[in-house]
């Protein structure tokens, strides 16, 4: 990539939110030693949203979730969940959470799936009946098994049951489908959609971009502990330059002229081949003809969220890296 425009609009989109936010991060900072995991984070999640938290490893996703769940306290700034502290919100049963599984397995060894789910139902102030929770998580058939004798995907579903054992208003999931095969992943998100339809707010961290694309109605891209982009997945793609345009010219291209094309967000010229990214492919291509050029083998293709995501994080990294 030889040219990129810096992504603009970060932070919250203007929302006509009648209800108070479910989660509010105000100027939150968290460092581990010299590593700044979360930097001046502003984040407001609204009731009923399904939000994907995206970011490369070390972007601050897990730290953000830890702060949200009160597992860590911020160095400065304020984290509010349902208008109170995370601990209080959890004690009142507002939040159901499923963490990333540890290396050595995370459940209570030596008890059965049913016993573990019953524990979760009993602990929740508004717990559901055990059988209902088992059924919804699709683990009725393995209810008699010991939790330490499960496959990775089964364990994830048990952990999901544990997180959704009661009537919580916010469900937080840290990389929930890790270790699941494609079929159980689909079932899992089916269940999640059902939860969202009941008006729950769902926040999940993932590195599967197609999940964010398909499931979330809001995508937040984190990078180095900051919000890099925040919007619908369509908006995120547009922000990165949603269309790829490529063609070949008869003669050597005039780079300066190409760079001045409208809606252009990226330009790469190698020999007589031109590759561009654009937020408005129609306008860009029209202007190419307007220059009197005759592009051969013209191709216009959509950009997946994955490429959009790479483009955004790349753009945020490059200037800083160059400055070092």
């Amino acid at each position, binding site marked *: 990539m030889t040219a990129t425009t810096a992504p603009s609009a970060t932070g919250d989109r203007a929302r006509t939110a009648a209800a108070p936010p479910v989660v509010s991060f105000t100027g939150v900072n968290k460092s581990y030693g010299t590593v700044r995991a979360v930097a001046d984070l502003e984040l407001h999640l609204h009731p009923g949203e399904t939000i994907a938290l995206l970011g490369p490893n070390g972007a601050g996703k897990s730290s953000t979730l830890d702060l949200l769940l009160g*597992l860590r306290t911020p160095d400065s700034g304020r984290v509010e969940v349902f208008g109170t502290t995370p601990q209080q919100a959890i004690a009142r049963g507002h939040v159901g959470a499923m963490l990333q*599984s540890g*290396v*050595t397995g995370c459940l*209570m060894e030596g*008890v059965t799936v049913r016993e573990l789910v019953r524990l979760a139902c009993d602990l*929740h102030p508004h717990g559901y009946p055990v059988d209902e929770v088992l059924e919804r998580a699709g683990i009725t058939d393995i209810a008699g098994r010991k939790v330490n004798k499960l496959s990775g995907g089964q364990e994830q579903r048990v952990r999901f049951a544990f997180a959704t054992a009661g009537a919580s208003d916010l469900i937080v999931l840290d990389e929930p489908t890790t270790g699941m095969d494609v079929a159980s992943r689909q079932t899992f998100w089916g269940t999640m959609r059902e939860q969202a339809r009941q008006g729950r707010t769902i926040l999940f961290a993932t590195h599967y971009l197609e999940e964010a694309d398909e499931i979330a109605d809001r995508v937040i891209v984190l990078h180095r502990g900051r919000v890099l982009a925040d919007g619908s997945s369509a908006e995120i793609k547009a922000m990165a330059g949603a269309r790829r345009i490529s063609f070949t010219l008869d003669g050597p291209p005039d780079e300066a002229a190409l760079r001045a094309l409208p809606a252009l967000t990226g330009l790469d010229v190698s020999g007589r081949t031109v590759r561009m990214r654009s937020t408005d492919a129609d306008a860009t291509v029209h202007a190419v003809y307007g220059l009197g050029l005759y592009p051969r083998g013209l191709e216009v293709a959509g950009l997946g969220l994955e490429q959009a995501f790479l483009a955004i994080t790349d753009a945020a990294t490059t200037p800083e890296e160059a400055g070092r």
Partner: protein
Amino acid sequence: MTTLIKLEILRALRNRKFMFFTVIYPSALFLMIAGSSGKTDLVPGTRLSMPLYYMVAMASFGALTAVLMGNSERIAKEREGGWVRQLRLTSLPGRGYVMAKIASAAVATLPSIVVVFIVAAAAKGVRLGAAWEWIALTGAIWAGSLVFAALGVAIGYLASGDAVRPLTMIIYFGLSILGGLWMPTTTYPRWLQNVGDWLPTHAYAALGQAIELGNAPHLKDVALLAAYLVLFAGAAAWLYRKDTRTA
């Protein structure tokens, strides 16, 4: 919270390895050590016969095993594996996890004490002066095990997954042997006896020995155990808070 306590007890009783080491092992050791000695053989330096001495020693040892071995390793592993974090995301009060651990250890302790008594009474014909002494003995050993339950929790929060087993083993065997649970400390060199006298296990076994002789436990032993309880519980509470802040 009662569900968690019930589950902790249930899985302790289900764990065959754990039940073997806490129930069968102390009784078997009792039979092996006290088996060849007669009823009238006195333990050097005491007024107790070999079977009497070893009955209390092994009941205390079994109780020690039950409260120390199970909890320290479980807590360290569950802390590392994320189960403790997951529980913190429920409405369970913060101390609930540790309370359940101690409660389940307390329940698992009872069979290890009672089985040693039954084996001693049946196989070696051990009799005490009065029926209440059996009850007092059980009560004293049971209550005393709380000191080591606190120690187990402290170790669980101090050590990480790999280090916890060797650390527990060193403390466990050190306390058992030097405190006189395996053999009377009267056979040790003088300086080692002096060290042993100040260990919680020594005071722990002394509780039962005093009752066997028809006396109340010595004030010094009770005070020493109480001091250790304060120390271990304080350490456990401090380590627990430290862990909660950084988890």
